[in-house]
């Protein structure tokens, strides 16, 4: 999700695999789950005898991811403020 969010263009399966370090099967099952949730869209491109899989964040996926990152940052900020008050 982070990789897809940082690139405005769709990313191909091989690039996502290199970034995540996941196996084909593991990455594939994660992508299917995310697609079912409407967070990403998957398209196939046929190049000669090979098929290239492209993955892109949907608008709702991008929003959900950014909200999640904001939530994580908020946890850190809240924790830091609590520590400052204690000291």
């Amino acid at each position, binding site marked *: 999700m982070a990789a897809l969010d940082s690139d405005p263009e769709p990313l191909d399966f*091989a690039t996502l695999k290199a970034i995540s370090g996941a196996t084909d099967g593991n990455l594939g099952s994660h992508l299917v789950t995310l697609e079912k949730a409407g967070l990403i869209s998957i398209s196939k491109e046929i190049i000669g005898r090979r098929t290239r899989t492209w993955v892109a964040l949907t608008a709702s996926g991008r929003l959900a991811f950014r909200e999640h990152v904001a939530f994580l940052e908020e946890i*850190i900020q809240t*924790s830091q403020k609590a520590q400052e008050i204690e000291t």
Partner: protein
Amino acid sequence: MDKKKALEILNDVAIARRKTSELRNYRGMGSIISAWGVVWLLGFGAQSIFPAAAPYVWIVGWLGAFAWTFTRPPKPEDFRALATWVVAVLCICLVLVVTKATQPTAAMIFGLALSAAYAILGIWSGKRFWVLAALVLISACVGWWLVPQWLYLALALGGGVALILGGVSIRRP
């Protein structure tokens, strides 16, 4: 979720973003590196085999490669990247004129400058560019010190072929 876990996840997000950015740079630069490799191969190849035709090959090659570099995606956001290139090349040319450099010296200096350019690119855009910097540097040094009579051929085959193949392989994730 506690602060430690949140920091871990944000760190993973930052790593994924950095890797994506590096791979995007490699993907964008691949064809540009190969284009400069072709110019390097043809230019120094001509200097070695058909010296009279070499200036024309260089002029056409440089113009073509500049056009390719600055029109292919990812296009630079403004004129500063092109201006940086032009200033660097003009500066090197002026140094060569002022020092009255011979043709082999000029070839060596351009080899070293290209190697330095890839090394700097490696610092900013991804470590794979260091491999290209090393290949160009090695071909220039081998030509200069080990086979000076074949300097142009060493730069053509070593530097040019390395850049062409490097441009193809650097695109791979």
